[in-house]
């Protein structure tokens, strides 16, 4: 279920792309509690549509999804905004043991199941580091 919020983007607007609804719900709860603005999408395709329409500060996406997976979404986003921060969630443990297999920069890889604190730290770091190269405003509205 997508749940959009038009609350002023403080401290940031995050898009959560996740095909499992309970994870979407849980992430929405968590990030909302931390005062982030959260928008949810069911799959990569929907996420991409939202990315194109919304002014976002961070995308948290699952890797394996129907219609369009996380990697494709990441590639599309990066093609448009090369330095845009992205956090990938994945259940594939292989990526942890072989980090070199994942050649994307400014992109945190978080393995499921994850620790809330870990996720929040990662989110905070992604949002705090300014997208200097693209000049993309980290906090649109500020």
């Amino acid at each position, binding site marked *: 279920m997508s749940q959009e919020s038009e609350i002023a983007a403080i401290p940031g607007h995050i898009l959560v792309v996740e095909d*499992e609804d*309970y*994870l979407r*719900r*849980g*992430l929405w*709860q*968590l990030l909302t*509690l931390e005062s982030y603005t959260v928008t949810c999408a069911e799959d990569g395709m929907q996420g991409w549509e939202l990315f194109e329409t919304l002014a976002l500060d961070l995308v948290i996406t699952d890797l*394996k*999804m*129907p*219609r369009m*997976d996380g990697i494709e979404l990441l590639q599309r986003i990066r093609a448009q905004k090369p330095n845009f921060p992205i956090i990938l*969630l994945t*259940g*594939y*443990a292989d990526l942890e043991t072989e980090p070199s297999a994942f050649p994307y920069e400014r992109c945190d890889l978080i*393995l*499921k*199941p*994850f*620790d*809330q604190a870990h996720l929040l730290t990662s989110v905070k770091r992604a949002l705090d580091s300014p997208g200097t190269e693209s000049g993309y405003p980290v906090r649109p509205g500020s």
Partner: protein
Amino acid sequence: MLRSLPTWVRLPRRRRPYTPTLVAPFYWRALVALAMLAVCAFYTYAAAQWAPYPGFDLSANWVVRALDSCEANVSWCAANGEPLQVGDRILVIGDLSHDDAMRDRGQVPFAGYSSGDWAPLTVERAEEVFTVQWRMLGPTPAGQWRRWGEGLFIYLPFWVIGTVLLLFLRPQDRRWRLLILFNYFTAFWLAVGAFSHLQIVYTSPTQRALAWLLVPVYLHVHLVVPSVLFPRMQRVLLPCLYILAAVLALLELLQQAPDGAYNLGLLVAVGGSFALLLVRLLGRFPASARTSVYLMLAGIGLAMGPGLGLAVIPSLFQSPLRDQALANRIAAFAIPLLPAFYLYAVYKPYLGRLEFRFNRLLSLYSFALLYLTALVLALTMAGHLLDGGLTLSTFIAAGFGIAAPFLQRGFLQLIDQAAYGAVPDPQKIVYTFADRMPSALDQEALVTLLAAEILPQFDIRQSALYLLQEDRADLIYQANVAHNEEHEVVEGLQGLMAEAERFRPGQDVAGKPFAWVRLAIPLQAHHEAIGFWLFGQREPDDYYPQHQIALLKTLAKQVAVAVENSLLFREQQQYTVELQQSLDRQQAMQTQLVQAGKLASLGTLVAGITHELNNPLAGIKLFTGNLQAFKQRGQLTDALLIQALADIDQLVDKANHIIRHFRDFSRRSGGEFGAVDLNQPVSDALGMLEQQLRLHNIQVQLALGADLPPVLGDANQLEQVVVNLIGNARDAMVAPSCHNRMLTLRTCAMGGTVVLEVADTGCGIAAEHLDKIFDPFYTTKEIGEGTGLGLSISYGIIKNHGGEISVDSAPGRGTTFHVRLPVCPPASPSTLEPQEQGDEP
């Protein structure tokens, strides 16, 4: 193994390679032999043709021994009027007195008197001396023939044996030279000595000189033959003896030696030789030498026995023989036995196939002479003691005739005993072998039979049995044999090939591998050599006579059959064991293959499964974390709590379901067959893979037939088949170029079967791959992506269920797998297992 034989295994009938020592060529040796004969014959010739012949024979002391009969020479007899009698002693012949003749033995009595001349004789008879005019008779043809006969007969045997040795026998070593010397010297001495009383061509001094020379020769021979005695003493003693003898011989030739001294020489020569032979019978001399000594003593005894017996026994009973001439002939005929036995004793191992014939010839000849001697003596005794007439003589002769075969058999055994030691009884051996061999199915039993029962009967101490394999020879057993290195064995057996089935005298092979082998008999089966049976030392003298070789060959044939039987038996056993092992291995491999296939299927599932498990876990963690966060901030409402707990509960169930299914699938198949509704494994497999299919945007179309008849099978295995087929379909459709991604699963009942169709819209399978896709490890996928086992396993499982699996495919048009399984017969509803009701995907 047995059929293809090493190339070096042939059975040639080659002569033993012989490298001659420093020996003159054959024609030289033949010349020597002829010269020897010529020298001997010269004396005979001189005695027969030149020597004056007065019509009577004189002894060395000029006593008349025999007078020619008057019947053949009537006019001569009438002229002489029989003035001389046997026993008369002649003192003077013409101008030559007896004393002068004794002083100068070069003087020939009756020299210068030819046939028809009158010679004045001074005769002493019963201490009365008178003079007669004696008319010379000869030489008459009859007298000449007699002298030729007597002369030749006495030395020819020694010359013949010496010549046989010189020309034909090997090895040509010291013993050979000495034995030739012995025979030729004896022949020479006899040729000269036979007519020494005639004193023609200096025979008398020559005879005496030769008598002295016989001493070192005889002693030397008996110091070396049959075995070397006192080698150190020989080196000093023999040269001295030869020199001394030469000096004495020279003195005799010059007629300076004391009269009659040469008799001492003869005594020393004969007595010393006899003593040297006897010494070898005293302890600590090898048994082989003893055998030769027995044979040589037998030769001496048999050569001298008849003559001595015929001379001594009648004189003991003071009953002269009726026919002295016959006795003399018997004695003369016995003489050749001495050199013959000597030759046999020493050269027995080298006579080859002639050995046994020679043995029998000697035995029969000796027996005939002994028999005749005994008969003559018996008849004489009978005539003397019982004054028996013709009747008694006839009875005695008949008795002798009846006893002859038994006596002969006994005598032959006696000679065999002396020549060969133990005489194995072929009948007993063959019985033992034939009786025990059929039960000797393994090699150990066979070896025990040979070593414990057969070989002891031959008195064989050393023996070995080799089996020939392709490039090596396996030792089956050996007794009292030094170990040989592998290469030595091959080399040695190669060497033995040339000498197979023949006795090998040991001297010329010393130092080579298998020098101990005296006899090698190939074991032959189907005209091919499969092994070698080697024999070495045996009692008493390591010799293997021909007839025993024949017996051993017969045994070897049986042993070959037994060995081959044992090999075949062992092969059979081994084959059975291998077959069983192969079956076990195959079963284990099949099980492993199924398991490997399952693991391979699992491998493809693992990604999806971890993903699926990690998702609910992540959800649970997220919800619990969130609850804590809400609580900390005091924002935790009941609604939130209830919702979160419900979510968590659901997630745990989800995770549990995944795990349970995972476990069910990977559980090793127990092979329990039961009635299965085919829709069940299809649904379960789809449930496991649904997530992945969804991830790859593959649409699933299900057309499961309602009320399918059950099939007899293992639900777990059938699910594996479906998983494999779905996995294949998925892999065929994941290519980016594949836009239409549709998986169709269809089940229906058709006749007596239930049909499952798994159809994809993927890239299809090329025709050249189509007939191989069910082969194990056949895969068109990249390395690391597929094991190539999935379809093979599926094929095996379906075959195992009595069903069929087929494929229908074309590149670009997609692939359809058809699985047909026979309907479960209604007789076995009791085996119907309660199927686990999985959650619908």
